[in-house]
């Protein structure tokens, strides 16, 4: 391996890990956002006396 290969390996690893982390955070956020929206809709359509309160 020459020096260029080490440089490419370091950058590839860094950006692969950072991209994977960003995608994981984004996907988790998208999933939670949808669930929160659904819960809000369900709650809005419930009769007032049947609503659960924290």
């Amino acid at each position, binding site marked *: 391996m020459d020096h260029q290969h080490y440089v490419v390996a370091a*950058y590839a690893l860094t950006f692969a890990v950072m991209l994977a982390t960003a995608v994981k955070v984004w996907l988790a956020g998208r999933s939670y956002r949808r669930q929160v929206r659904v*819960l809000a809709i369900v709650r809005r359509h419930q009769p007032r006396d049947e609503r*659960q309160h924290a």
Partner: protein
Amino acid sequence: MSPYARLKSAVAGLAQPTRFLELAERVLPFLLALTALCLVGGLYLSFSSDVDYQQGSTVRIMYVHVPTAWIAMLCYTVMTANAIGSIVWRHPLADVAARAAAPLGATFTFVSLVTGAIWGKPMWGTWWVWDARLTSMFVLFIMYLGIVAINRAIDEPTRAARVTAVLIIVGFVNIPIIKFSVDWWNTLHQPASVLRFDGPALDIEFLRPLMVMGLAFVTLFFTLYLASIRNEIWRRKIIAQHRLAARFVVHKEN
């Protein structure tokens, strides 16, 4: 209203998850754009700057290795501040923030360790040595993993928060050890060349891309951190709703 009182009320306001979610929604697109801009600029500077007369092009590894190591330590410092907020002031968001930071810290530490090993092989002739700097960084990585594991192993959120906060505060002792390990012990790792009391020892040719990449990684960290805190708030909201629904069903059946 005095500036101190205004700052205090702004921080207290952030304790409300709804207000924090509003702020995150507004700030995240700007942070994301700034991260992309800094990364593009940083990458351009990294590959257009001169190579080192001794290290050759391997010096470019510094532009990803050093910023990730900085963020690994910054993340732990932020986590410690949150842990203090969680224990002393019982700030509702502090526990959420401490929990969200640990996996990010582990990621940045992992990248710093591996890129350091990749840099070490052509420069030192070895991937790894158990010198003070490398060992203390490895301990930081293990601590991040331990904090994540302990937080997830305890079901009761208040207890999990307290145990994790104590562990984080005790573990902070490792941060000055990492920083000063190269001064206190004879290490294969080189001494500090940027964050020094008498100014950076690096030439501007290397300092410029390093600073831009450093800024890129700082903005990337805060983008991921804000998004993770927002996700954790939503996760807790969903769990609370599920618990309430289950309790309501049990109550109705009885």
